[in-house]
């Protein structure tokens, strides 16, 4: 579906992409990882036809620079930093939907599933929303249409655990029909979402590896944690994951989205000395959905 053939990008004397060759097919969920300045954003901008470059970039055989509308109508893009747009939320949705020939209602429905109260915020300027709310709306615009290629730059960074869970489910709904390119500084943030990892370093591809695709994007884990003693900081952190406490806040239980398990364990690692016992097991999807609002 996507082909980068010897893609070179220079900014004056600085060569940012040094002959990138990469092919991505439908069904591939690619983690594009690398440190700052590795060339991830530049590669994405070449893919979106926003940068001119040497070599060839093709999406279904079309050049994104020459056949912008045809290519970009297939692409759903979520940037890392939301643009400071002043137009009201509903207007932004309608504007994007009109350009994409999509149904704005469908985009709004996705936003509502992600936990954004469209009725409350519809007249509010986009720039005045919180970071998480902006992210939800941009995800809704990208996923609330028939995108065949999702380009997501740190898409879940500002989302709360509930919204992340629903976001993973939305990706699961698209995983067989779309290709996904998910950019991140850290592999552990996106590892469980992808089936392929591409690492960039100083404008070169240094790793292109398939990874075990065993985690169901829509799965959940039922988790129980027992503490040595109650701890207010832990209670606050675990409360953000919507866990319920018992036994004087010594015992906690709740659901964790399957692809979020690594992130969750990373959070728990900060309180490792407090934890007396922990158990995680695959949960019944329907029960988990009932426990997570909006799913």
């Amino acid at each position, binding site marked *: 579906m996507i082909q980068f053939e010897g893609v070179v990008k220079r900014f004056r004397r600085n060569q940012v992409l040094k002959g990138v060759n990469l092919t991505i097919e439908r069904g591939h969920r690619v983690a594009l990882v690398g440190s700052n300045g590795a060339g991830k954003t530049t590669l994405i901008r070449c893919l979106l036809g926003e940068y*001119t470059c040497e070599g060839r970039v093709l999406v279904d055989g079309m050049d994104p620079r020459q056949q912008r509308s045809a290519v970009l109508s297939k692409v759903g893009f979520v940037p890392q930093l939301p643009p400071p747009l002043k*137009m009201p939320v509903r207007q932004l949705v309608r504007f994007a939907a009109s350009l994409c020939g999509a149904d704005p209602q469908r985009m709004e429905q996705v936003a509502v599933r992600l936990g954004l109260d469209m009725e409350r915020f519809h007249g509010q300027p986009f720039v005045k929303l919180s970071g998480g709310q902006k992210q939800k709306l941009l995800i809704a615009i990208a996923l609330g249409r028939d995108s065949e290629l999702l380009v997501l730059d740190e898409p879940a960074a500002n989302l709360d655990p509930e919204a992340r869970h629903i976001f993973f489910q939305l990706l699961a709904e698209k995983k067989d029909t779309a290709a996904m390119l998910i950019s991140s500084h850290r592999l552990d943030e996106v590892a469980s979402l992808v089936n392929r990892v591409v690492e960039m370093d100083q404008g070169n591809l240094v790793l292109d590896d398939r990874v075990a695709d065993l985690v169901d994007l829509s799965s959940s884990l039922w988790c129980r944690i027992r503490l040595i003693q109650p701890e207010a900081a832990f209670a606050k952190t675990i409360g953000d994951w919507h866990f319920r406490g018992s036994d004087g806040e010594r015992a906690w239980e709740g659901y964790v989205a399957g692809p979020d398990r690594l992130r969750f364990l990373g959070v728990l690692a900060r309180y490792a000395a407090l934890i007396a016992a922990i158990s995680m097991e695959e949960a019944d999807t329907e029960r988990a959905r009932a426990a997570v609002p909006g799913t």
Partner: protein
Amino acid sequence: MKHLWLNAYADIVESLRARWFLVYTAVFGGLVVLLFAYGLAESRIMGFTGLSRLLLTYIQLTMAILPVFVLVTTVRSVAGDREAGVFEYLLSLPITLSAWYWGKMLGRFLMVFMPVFLAMIGAIVWGVIKGAAMPWAMLIYYTGLLMVLAWCFLGIGMLISTIARTSDVAQGAAFVVWLTLLLFLDLILLGIMIQEQLPAETAVAIALANPMQVFRTASMMLFDPQLVLLGPSAYVILDSFGQSGYIAYALIYPMLLGTLCAGIGYLIFRRTDLP
């Protein structure tokens, strides 16, 4: 075409909430209020009274303020949008570059022209309510002048925004362009150059090429038909063109200049990196 109008509309919505637009509207609205507050509609100068006098003063002030305002606000907001990631996101949507660029130009034109025009219309309406005679011919002529003035400097602003990669550079370049045009007004550097034996043809060519000089001459022509206040090159120009000829030139040339600058800006825009 639908995408062009959509983008023009989006730019209008964005501008309506932008700080530059509030300041811009307040300046021109405030100008009219000030002119009335100082009783300009009741004063007389060189035979012009009432609304004609008010319009003359308003257009003179506008000629001084509008170019620098349009240049700076255009380059700041367009180059600023690029820096802030607005281009990166909106240009990832399936819109053609021509619809994007010309839609932005169209929306921005309405936003810079309407406050100036509406302030002038407001002054006229107020004057008519107060019983002043309606100077129709002057109103139509000045409306046309304001339109081409806004279009011309918007085109120059879009060209600068396309070439400059940061809002600071764009703002500096816009200021230099404005200062250069200002210096080459008839009574400033051009006048000195004529004193220093600059060939008459060169002085006239500079005066005809400088849109600020063209507007100044065009707006004062009705007020001072002999152009004694404007300087030597304007006198020669009027002598060669005649009043009607110069009115046509003052309306057509800046429109072509603005379109040419915007067109070059578009060609550069579509060939270079977008965000």
